[in-house]
Every structure is written in C-alpha cells, then in structure tokens.
C-alpha cells in the first residue's frame, strides 16, 4: 500500500528536479542574474518611477512563479516597515524646492518628497530583489547550481547547515518550551511570565545546538563527507533552456545600458 509513495519518490528523483513552475525551474544562477539586472536597472535609472516599476515587476514575477500571495505580503511588510520610514526621514531632512508643509526647521518640500521617493524606491527595489530570489529558489537548488560551477560541496554544506540551524533552533525552542511547561513553569500569559520562562528555554536550545555540532560532524564523516574525489548528486537540475539565456542577455544589456547612460548623463 505504501510502496506507491516510494515509487513516486524514486520516479521524481529519476527525472529532473522540478518545482512545477517554469520561473522557479530556471537555473538558480540565471534567475539570480535576471533579478539582479532588473534591480540594477532600477538603481541606475534616475527618479523613482523606474525603481518603483522594478518592484512591481518583482511582484509580478512572484505571481508568475506561483509564490505571489506570500511574496506580496513580504513585499508590503517591507514597504510598511522599512520603505516608509526611509521615505519620511529623507523627505523631512532634505531641503530645497517649494515648501509644501512648513514644520519649523524641518519642512516638507518638493525636493524632499522627490529625494525620499527616490531613496525609498531604490532601497526597496534591492530588498525586493533579494527576497524574491529566496522566495522562488530553494537553497538546495542554489547550492547545486553553485556546485556545478565548481564551488566546493563543503562551502555549500556550511551555507545549507547555517540556514537549517536557524530553522532547527525554532523547532528545538518549541520542544524545550513544552518541556518547561511540562515541569510546571508558566510560559503562557503576561510578558513578565514569558521573560521568567525565557532563560530555561534559551539555555538548552544553545546547549543542544553546541553539543549536537560535534556529534553531527562525526555522523557526517561516517557519510563519507570528508572523502576526496568527485561527488554525485541525487537531485539533478533541469538543463538551462535557451529562453533563459535570452532573458538574461536582454536584461544584462539593459542594465549595462542603464548604468552607462547614468554615467554619461543620458537621462
């Protein structure tokens, strides 16, 4: 009855890795290039409309990649948490232009609004690019792509393990929190109660992370991790499609043009 799960898994690994979406199945490094080039266009072009448009493009790509809803939420949270503050600070602190709202020494001026919009949209374009990439690409696929171009499996292991340990800490914290509750230590309720419960949780989380490190190292060694020579990979990334190269080429050309244009003052 259960061998179907095994058959399905075996068949899945036998085929090229797919996340069931053409954008997410792009070669991670090419996708990275495309996103970086789009962000570069936003940064190199003057004013705030193009960087804002770059952000909009990222949201669109997020939806095309099937991660639209969660990515849009991240994107809006970024704007609400970081973008708005950057905008307000810049807008208030920049002088010049027509005064719109006089506020004593720090007035809101047209130049301030312009500068604020520019600064906030540019920073947001960069943040949105980074978050989009990690929303679309599993770390494992990125590491595989890096290994393909010659990055050592050790480096990719360290990166993967660091990401995993963050997730692990969360999971361990929940388990330990339960253990404290099971001992009669109150962890629910007022902030004071939570603070009192904090230390008993924190200590075992770090202790177990530390003691696990050595045993993990030995466990990995037992998996031939330290063996010299070529490694293979169970997961095979799909071959890069010509359109991916095309998209990358176009975007990089556009980005180069935008940068050169910016330097030569075309805009």
């Amino acid at each position, binding site marked *: 009855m*259960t*061998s179907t*799960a*095994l058959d399905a*898994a*075996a068949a899945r*690994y*036998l085929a090229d890795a797919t996340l069931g979406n053409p954008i997410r199945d792009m070669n991670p490094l090419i996708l990275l290039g495309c996103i970086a080039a789009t962000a570069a266009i936003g940064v190199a072009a003057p004013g705030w409309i193009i960087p804002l448009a770059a952000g909009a493009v990222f949201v669109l790509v997020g939806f095309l990649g099937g991660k639209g809803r969660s990515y849009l939420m991240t994107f809006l949270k970024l704007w609400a948490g970081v973008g708005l503050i950057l905008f307000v600070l810049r807008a208030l602190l920049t002088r010049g232009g027509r005064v719109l709202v006089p506020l004593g020494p720090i007035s809101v001026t047209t130049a301030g609004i312009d500068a604020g919009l520019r600064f906030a949209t540019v920073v947001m374009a960069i943040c949105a690019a980074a978050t989009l990439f990690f929303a679309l690409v*599993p770390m*494992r696929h990125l590491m595989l792509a890096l290994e393909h171009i010659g990055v050592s*499996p050790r480096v990719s*292991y360290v990166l*993967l*393990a660091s990401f*995993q*340990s963050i*997730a*692990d800490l969360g*999971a361990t914290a929940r388990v330990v929190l339960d253990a404290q509750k099971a001992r009669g230590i109150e962890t629910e309720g007022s902030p004071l109660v939570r603070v009192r419960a904090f230390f008993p949780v924190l200590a075992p989380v770090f202790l177990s992370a530390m003691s*696990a490190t050595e*045993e*993990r*190292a*030995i*466990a*990995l*060694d*037992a*998996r*031939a*991790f*330290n*063996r*010299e*020579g*070529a*490694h*293979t*990979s*169970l*997961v*095979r990334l799909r071959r890069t499609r010509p359109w991916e190269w095309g998209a990358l080429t176009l975007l990089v050309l556009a980005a180069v043009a935008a940068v050169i244009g910016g330097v030569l003052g075309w805009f």
Partner: protein
Amino acid sequence: MVLATLRDVRFTYAYSERPALDGLSLEWEEGKVHGVVGLNASGKSTLCALVRGIIPHFHEGELTGQVQILGKDLQDWDPAELSTAIGCVFDNPFTQISGIRETVFEEIALGLENLGVPRDEIIERVRRVVEQLGIERLVDKNPNGLSGGQRQKVAFASIIAMDADVVVIDEPTSQLDPESSEEVFEIIHGLKDRGKSIVLVEHKIDLLAAYADTVTVMHGGRAAMSGPTREVLGSAELRSYGVRPPEVAELAGLLQEDGRGIGIMPMTRDEAAHAVASRIEEVSRAH
C-alpha cells in the same frame, strides 16, 4: 583476515582523568557479528569509536597499546579512507541526521552522493534499504521532524545504503518497538550473509544471543569476557558484570537448579524448544 586486534589498549579522553579503556585486549574475525555488552560507562562506546578511528582522529586523548584494523595499524590509516571502509551509526538518533536534507530519501542518498555513486544507482540503493526497513511512508518527510524511533531507522538505513564492508552500530534499537528491533537484527543478519563484519552494541540480550557470533563483555574499560556467544552468555560469571543472561538461558538455569536440567545452554528459542520438547518426551516415556 582479522577485523580488529587490540592489545592492552588504554585510552583517556583529554577532558577526563579516568581512563575509558584500561587494558583492553580482544580479537575479532571478519565476516561475523560481534556483540558488545556491559554496564553504562564500561567502555562500549569508546571501543566503537576506536574501531571506527574516531579515536584518535576526532576525539583527543592519550592512546597506548596496539590497535590493528583490517591488518593495518590504526595510526597508519588515512582518516577519510577509514571512515568509508567502516560504516558507523551512533546511539543518539537525534544527532545522526545530517540536518541539511529536506526529505528522508535525500538524507539516505547523502552518503552515496559523497561516495560518487551514479544517480541511477543511488536511487536503486535507497529504494532497496527503504523497503528493507519498511520506511516507505517516511520517504517524503523532513528528517528533522521525525520521532526518535523514526530517526533511528533513517540513520541506520543511511549507513546500510553505503554498503561498507564493516559496520559498527551502537544501540540501533534503543527507541524501537519489538517488531522493528527484530527487523533491524534481520537486516544485520543479512549483511553477515553477504560477508560483512558487524560490531554491535546492544542491551537487548535476547536478540543479541540469537544473532551474534561472538560476545564481548566490557567492564571497567577492559574486555572481562570475549568469545563465542554461547560460552559468554551461558556463563555464570555474566551476572557479575551487570549483564542479564538471555531469557532462555535463564530458564535453562532455573530448571537446572531444580534438578530438571535440559542438557544444553540454549541461546535461541528454537534451541530451548527442542531441548524442552525432548525432555518432555523423556519424562512421558519414563512414565
């Protein structure tokens, strides 16, 4: 060939004052299942670490005496080579998982990838151990979210898949139910049939009695007893090292004390059943 020869081995961990191994001598042949029993802290896990080369390559400390693994001095082995020649599963199932793989299937494949096994063969070999251990339902699960028993099976599967000629296993069934424990022992038996050598630390003495060829009783850092399973586990000396005899041997002992001895020191239920059956026959014939 000889799997391991230890002569008067002493080892003290760098952080400790008391030696963990203290005059340990033993010899293990290849192609057999070698059971190791004894109280906690009697040196069982240290012995495993030594045979697998984790001592002295990973754990620091003072090592004296002679240790030969597969005919070569332990100090002369290249650590990476030894780690692939001898597979090893440790007792804490919570740290035997790599932590970087998102599915059990990929977790089991990790060692094979590092060995450079071609993809098609990796998939075939993972399939085989998954079926052997009956963990089909786990293949798509995240290894980091498994229970202790499930992790123990996955860790075991990951090492078995690598197909090393020697496997050192420290308490592979501590978190498993009776049926799963027996399955693990069946697999170990299958490995032996394929010519592998196994070193097995295990508290479940009934299973060990049925499957091990030799048993070594560790006590205070040395091998208090070491030899063929029946000789060791049937010995009256056994209890003085804190090891309980197998239940069937206990039964034979009790019958013997009562003047109703069954003539042999059984190690398996089958052996005991035969002996008891022939005794019953004798008794009924005498009537």
